[in-house]
């Protein structure tokens, strides 16, 4: 995959959430085999607002409210996909993958392979990740690493409205199960989004800011924290390149390595708990494949090894922020 630095030429600004909503509307218009199912998706338009207007526009056949039965919802998507439909389901919070994890890792992910290729599973699973909203330990996690370790799944995690729409369209057109991980704090962020449909390929990272002294690889909301950090650091004469993988499975390692080969220093940042997070995978790959280009140890920032605390003071301390990124980047470039 080659580097795609997003250049958007439109004056139209909508939010990340609206962008995904628009993708769903457009794909449902062009393809009758798409249907949407999940808790409070139809009448209520989803508790995160992702399916607003779908019921009115497409009617109850195309979008259904389900019982609180995530195993049945997930199986619904799998079984229907084997029969040629293109289901989009929501599991609300990514924390809830736990209640239907067998259907995800042992059924959805493996069916095609176990059947010797004779199944196509064009389905998209919507989940919301992220802390910082006072929702405590069971509604605030970033569990993408669990999904990325399972062959058969694809995992995208956009940070901007533009990517959210483009990746949602691509996901819905994929003939494989894709987890679309939305970050709660990205949800209201606005950005330029063309009205017409477009795709952002899976497995293609974006260089969202160019720089020469260090690379920051950041995902989801951390992209914005990294960009803020880069801005501050620029004032100190440190030129930071920010790379957003956008899709984690497949992962566009090449774009990351290219950046590291240029800057010779790297800091990987995600909101998930650091231990066992996707940053370990990324940095291990960098260390193995760009070792000779590194002028300093590859560094990581992730959340400390604890459940997400409720108290605002602790939660603020738990969530990775731009100050930490600034501090670590300073260490990185001086190291």
């Amino acid at each position, binding site marked *: 995959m080659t580097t795609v630095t997003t250049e958007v030429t439109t004056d139209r600004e909508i939010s990340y959430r609206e962008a995904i909503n628009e993708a769903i509307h457009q794909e449902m218009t062009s393809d009758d085999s798409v249907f949407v199912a999940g*808790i*409070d998706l139809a*009448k*209520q338009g989803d*508790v995160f607002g992702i399916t607003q207007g779908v019921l009115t526009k497409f009617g109850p056949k195309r979008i259904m*409210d389900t*019982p*609180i*039965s*995530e*195993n049945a919802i997930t199986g619904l998507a799998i079984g229907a996909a084997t029969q040629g439909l293109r289901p989009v389901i929501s599991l609300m919070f990514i*924390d*809830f993958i*736990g*209640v239907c994890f067998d259907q995800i890792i042992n059924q959805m992910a493996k069916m095609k392979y176990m059947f010797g290729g004779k199944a196509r599973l064009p389905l998209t699973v919507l989940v919301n990740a992220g802390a910082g*909203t*006072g*929702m*405590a*330990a*069971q*509604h605030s996690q970033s569990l993408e690493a669990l999904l990325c370790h399972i062959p058969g799944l694809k995992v995208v995690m956009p940070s901007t409205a533009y990517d959210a729409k483009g990746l949602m369209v691509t996901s819905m057109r994929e003939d494989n199960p894709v987890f679309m991980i939305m970050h709660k704090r990205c949800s209201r962020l606005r950005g330029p989004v063309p009205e017409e449909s477009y795709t952002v390929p899976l497995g293609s990272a974006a260089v969202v800011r160019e720089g020469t002294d260090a690379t920051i690889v950041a995902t989801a909301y951390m992209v914005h924290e990294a960009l803020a950090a880069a801005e501050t650091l620029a004032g100190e004469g440190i030129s930071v390149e920010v790379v957003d993988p956008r899709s984690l499975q497949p992962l566009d390692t090449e774009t990351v390595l290219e950046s590291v080969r240029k800057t010779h220093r790297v800091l990987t940042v995600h909101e998930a708990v650091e231990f066992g997070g996707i940053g370990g995978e990324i940095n291990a790959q960098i260390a193995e494949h760009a070792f000779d280009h590194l002028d300093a140890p590859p560094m990581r920032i992730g959340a*400390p*090894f*604890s*459940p997400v*605390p*409720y*108290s*605002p*003071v*602790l*939660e603020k*301390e*738990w969530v990775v922020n731009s100050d930490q990124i600034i501090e670590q980047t300073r260490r990185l470039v001086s190291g």
Partner: protein
Amino acid sequence: MTTDLDSEQLLYMFRTMVTIREFEEAAGRMAEQARIPGAVHLYAGEEAVAVGVCSHLEATDTIASTHRGHGHCIAKGGDVKLMLAELLGKSSGYCRGKGGSMHIADLDLGILGANGIVGGGPPIAVGAAFAAQYQGTGGVSVCFSGDGSTNEGTWHESLNFAALFDLPAVFVIENNHWGEFTPQEKQGSITQLSDRAAAYGIPGFTVDGQDVLAVHQAAGEAVARARTGNGPTLLECDTYRFYNHTGRSEGDPRPEEERAAWRERDPLTILCGVLEERAILSGESADRITEEVQREIEEAITFAEEAPYPELSELLTDIYS
């Protein structure tokens, strides 16, 4: 309805229900004012269920609660000061500020925690029931579940498990007829959820969940059955939440007539009526109780607001023993 309760007990139940109501009114207000960081799911309207059931429980009995857990906690003896401090994320709170509304617990009082996962509680209740049986404590494990949660697989596994081993458990369904924004009839095709007891060969009953005396009586039988080694009971309580799914938020999709009809069946008014009829309470003393409770809640708010936030160093404590 006849009852074995003396006036002291009845007044205690009334006061507890008022406490839940006032607590929820306060929590709702504070959430609206963004003084509470997270989501609060208010129990107002359902007070008779928690109080009627918990009126049979000792500190050695346990309860597993739900996301809508404040009422259970208060009914089981929870301290409103510590609860409010927890809602504010303060270190004096029940969970030192680490849990919040959806995770308030007090193991000393047998409160195994609210739970942010729908269907998360029943398996844990099974474990507590098993421990009581294993240790021969005579304790009973009560599991509160919403109507919506009875469609989670965990609920089913738990009932089957408890039934098989004759565990001292009572499974209470708080059927408030909605799960988030979706009505019960769009979540399953039976209307009386206690019919599910047949799937496990245990007794199942449905009672008026707005009438605390009806709940008290049915729960009494269920708890006695559990305590005497006769296994679990499924007890469905027909009830209603007075506010929207979280807090007192806008956009309640429930029909206005439905809401009004249930408001007519306020469990506090119903109990008050009985108490007045039996001359246990006058309108005046009911007001006095309410005022006392309001003062108590005000004090709790003050306590909670003045309580310190946790130290940042506490971020990494309490993960492992």
